[in-house]
């Protein structure tokens, strides 16, 4: 039976909410975006729906199905908001049926393109189905070739299984027999590949090996996929994730896990996938500050490296932690078509910043293939399977988060070793720094092809990699030390390296607390005839002194440990230090702790000295800055913070929030 778009929407909402929607009620999708943190938790949803039904209340003027209500401002929005604020006076979180429907509405409203999630949303809702099926024809017409195609195809097959036309089901079957998608070579690739195969072999459980592209039977495929996914979960929850805390690829963990947690039939396995999804989400939540993913990252995109909210994973942060549709990307539609709701405790961990906290965690670097002793000049250790250790540390407050790992290269090309992220609505709410490192060694460490050739060719795929001005990438010559709100980064490179400098990004939103006429700012050392080593760009270097900034309520002091030049860059200012054996010290605090005026007065007179393995401020004898330059020691904790606790090797993660506890126990 062909359903109309509206009746299909009703059916979807009823299925997600457990109660049929009142035909007289038109949910105002703009309200869903507006209400932000006033979100609707599962226990209250049925009550609300019942109240609405009993009242026969009409929240907003009826609208054509599938149209966005974002344009409708005014009395209805205010009325809706007041009503729900009164009704939901407690702090409630979850992905309400209304939010899910708003997600689907928004994704289904995107003009159709080669994206399974958009096509699935349209078919699921019964919106624009002719165009959706036409696009599906294209998506199934030739082998697109990889695991990204696979998880999208598997997702569409499952989320639309009750409405997908039989001939398209048959075509999908044909594809999985004849297409030969590539498995890839990273952790997220393998999750997508084996996650998709598990679901599809479950859908067609009795097929012989001749009916699958790789020549294995359904049972063999299911068994292998299960074995890999079990192995991956066990390794990750015991010894740490390889592609840890990735603002870019976290998106590609959450989507397949949401599908696996919903559609896996084996209850034990499904439960593990649900826990793993929560595991991924809570790791993100603990580093979440109002839409920004904080701290160090294994893999981040060029844009998001200096503008955190541009990261792909923000779509899921907004959706799961804030019940918001303000930052949607297509795959969120897959999550919205499942029954999964982010547990309240995870949302609370993501949002409660009333008390500052420290979090220690251990991750693993990507498996090294070559040059195992070259990932860091300060450390050459690795585990028995050639993963470098990653010691991650975050200091989170309500105003900012300063987070780092110890330095070195543990992931190729896209690593971000530290960041100071601000709780600010302004763009580029981050300070970060690096030594732009480019080498065949880094590529050969993680990719099997010829190192020298990869370096020659990499600009085609990762254009920014060889750029002197890049903002992502680790360096074996970087050592980072952090104690709460103080961070020290030191650099020491050989002459043979291509780029001899350290760069620091300061956002445009950070205003300098020292004007250019200030004696500090105007002071230059004796070597002011040195010039910036970029062809055609001549700049004077400034001598050592504190650079003091303010961004919203946060006060920041940056002390370059060598001469530096500053110049404008996209989104802010680049501070470039050309001297070897240099680095910088960064200090942050807030106006609640010290006034701007006092901050300037105090810091402009401070100098830094290195003594006994420490960096100390003088003449206050280390009162302001006193940090020990100590290599991270082996820790027994995979996670250790007020919110998260997991002993290395245990396979158990305990979530805590104000006396409430949730345990993710992966032991069999």
């Amino acid at each position, binding site marked *: 039976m062909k359903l109309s778009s509206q009746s299909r929407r009703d059916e979807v909402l009823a299925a997600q909410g457990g109660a049929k929607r009142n035909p007289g009620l038109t949910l105002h999708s703009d309200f869903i975006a507006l209400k932000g943190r006033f979100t609707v938790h599962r226990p209250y949803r049925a009550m609300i729906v019942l109240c609405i039904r009993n009242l026969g209340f009409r929240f907003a003027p009826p609208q054509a199905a599938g149209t966005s209500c974002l344009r409708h401002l005014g009395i209805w929005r205010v009325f809706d908001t007041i009503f729900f604020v009164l009704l939901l006076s407690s702090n409630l979180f979850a992905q309400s049926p209304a939010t899910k429907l708003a997600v689907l509405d928004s994704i289904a409203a995107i003009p159709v393109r080669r994206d399974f999630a958009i096509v699935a949303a349209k078919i699921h809702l019964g919106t624009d189905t002719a165009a959706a099926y036409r696009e599906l024809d294209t998506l199934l017409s030739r082998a697109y070739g990889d695991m990204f195609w696979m998880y999208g195809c598997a997702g569409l097959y499952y989320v639309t299984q009750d409405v997908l036309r039989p001939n398209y089901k048959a075509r999908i079957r044909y594809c999985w027999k004849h297409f030969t998608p590539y498995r890839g070579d990273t952790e997220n*690739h393998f999750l997508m590949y084996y996650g998709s195969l598990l679901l599809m072999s479950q859908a067609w459980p009795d097929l012989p090996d001749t009916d699958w592209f790789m*020549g294995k039977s359904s049972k063999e495929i299911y068994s292998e996929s299960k074995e890999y996914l079990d192995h991956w979960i066990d390794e990750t929850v015991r010894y740490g994730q390889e592609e840890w805390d990735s603002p870019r690829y976290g998106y590609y963990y959450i989507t397949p896990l949401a599908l696996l947690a919903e559609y896996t039939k084996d209850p034990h396995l499904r439960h593990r996938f649900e826990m793993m999804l929560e595991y991924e989400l809570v790791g993100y939540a603990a580093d979440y500050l109002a839409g920004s993913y904080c701290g160090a990252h294994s893999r981040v995109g060029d844009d998001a490296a200096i503008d955190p909210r541009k990261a792909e994973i923000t779509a899921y942060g907004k959706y799961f932690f804030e019940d918001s549709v303000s930052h949607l990307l297509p795959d969120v539609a897959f999550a919205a078509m499942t029954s999964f709701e982010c547990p309240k405790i995870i949302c609370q961990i993501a949002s409660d910043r009333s008390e500052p906290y420290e979090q220690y965690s251990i991750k693993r670097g990507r498996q090294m293939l070559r040059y195992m002793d070259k990932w860091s000049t300060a450390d050459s250790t690795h585990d028995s399977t050639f993963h470098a250790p990653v010691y991650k540390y975050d200091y989170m407050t309500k105003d900012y988060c300063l987070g780092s790992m110890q330095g070195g290269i543990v992931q190729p090309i896209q690593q971000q070793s530290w960041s100071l992220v601000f709780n600010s609505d302004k763009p580029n709410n981050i300070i970060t720094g690096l030594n732009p490192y480019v080498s065949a060694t880094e590529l050969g460490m993680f990719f099997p092809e*010829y190192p020298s050739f990869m370096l020659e*060719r990499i600009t085609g795929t990762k254009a920014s990699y060889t750029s002197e001005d890049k903002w992502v990438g680790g360096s074996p010559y970087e050592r980072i030390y952090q104690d709460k709100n103080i961070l020290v980064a030191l650099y020491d490179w050989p002459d043979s390296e291509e780029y001899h400098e350290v760069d620091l990004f300061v956002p445009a939103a950070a205003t300098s607390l020292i004007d250019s006429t200030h004696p500090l700012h105007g002071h230059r050392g004796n070597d002011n005839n040195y010039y910036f080593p970029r062809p055609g760009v001549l700049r004077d270097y400034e001598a050592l002194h504190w650079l003091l900034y303010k961004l919203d309520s946060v006060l920041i002091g940056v002390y370059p440990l060598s001469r530096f030049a500053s110049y404008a860059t996209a989104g802010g200012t680049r501070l470039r230090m050309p001297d070897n054996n240099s680095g910088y010290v960064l200090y942050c605090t807030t106006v609640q702790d010290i006034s701007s005026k006092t901050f300037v007065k105090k810091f402009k007179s401070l100098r830094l000295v290195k003594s006994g393995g420490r960096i100390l401020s003088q003449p206050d004898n280390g009162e302001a800055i006193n940090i020990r330059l100590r290599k991270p020691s082996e820790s027994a904790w995979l996670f250790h913070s007020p919110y998260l606790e997991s002993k290395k090797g245990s396979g158990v993660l305990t979530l805590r929030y104000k006396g409430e506890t949730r345990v993710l126990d992966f032991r069999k």
Partner: protein
Amino acid sequence: MKKLLGLIKCDRWDYWDLFLPLVLSLLFCLIFPLASSAQHLRIFACAIANDSAGAFMGGSSNGSGLYQSDDTGKTWKHLGWDNIKCYSMDMVQSSNGRILYEATGLGILRSTDYGEHWKQLTDWRISEAMDVAVNQKNPKEIYIATAHGPWRTEDGGKTWELLMKGLPNPYCSGIVIDSIVPNHVILNARNGLLSLRGNLVWNKIPILQNGSKKPYQLRGIKCIRQASPESWGYAYNDTYAVSSDDSGRSFLCDSINPIWQPFLTNSTAFVGVYYDYVTDPYFNDYNGPPREQGHIVIFSTLDNGIQRFKRAEEPEAKVRLDGHSLPHRQIWTLKSFLVTP
């Protein structure tokens, strides 16, 4: 019976009328198989991607796969899977091209019908398989070199064993089995060559240059054995070629043959030579005497397909072998075999 004998007792011409067709048929039956069994060279090109900017490393494998040529590279036919990083291949030589193995990004694939259909023999444990070597005397024994270490199967791929004993780093890109002594295996690893001799522990093979031992990352390793039983292998990188004249116990390093220098850049994946369009001692075993006349250099690159030129010509005269059926590809390996059509 008498009637039959009567036929035989005919005059001479009658006799030939009867037997000539039979004799001709018999001769045809004898000669045709001999003629049809003339071997020719089949070349396989293993592509890990096309050479477009977006198809390089990591996630992309567009345009990759195994290609076969039966006309010395003039035309190419794609075999099996699209979108698979094909690093190398091997053939069960007694199968005359029917049984093929592909070393790929997702492990080892096998075809038993000349490349029409393929089955994945390995599971999630094995990835980035960069070379495969079949023991031609016992085709169920297969060795593979992967970026994560070497593996072996003794049961045709049902079970695999990781061979890490004695190997300091897991990365290896090439593996060959001695064609005379099958339990002698040489691995092209991160810092040079290692060998197995009967046991399953890798031993470093010394590579000598001016009397001192040096580690080398070599690109190719071949078992040639054509000059004498002691002459064993050949390997190279951008600058050096190494060879052994003591059955692979040690290798001597020399500057690479100047004729190859024009082709040895960062993008050169493979260099080989074949002779007279017939056989290929530098690719595979060849038991005849070395031929020097009119030989042809054939080489593959990671950014310019496959090319060749005759030794007598200038390097600039090199000709691309991709034609219309093999557009630009990142060709990791070329291999050739003698087959009977």
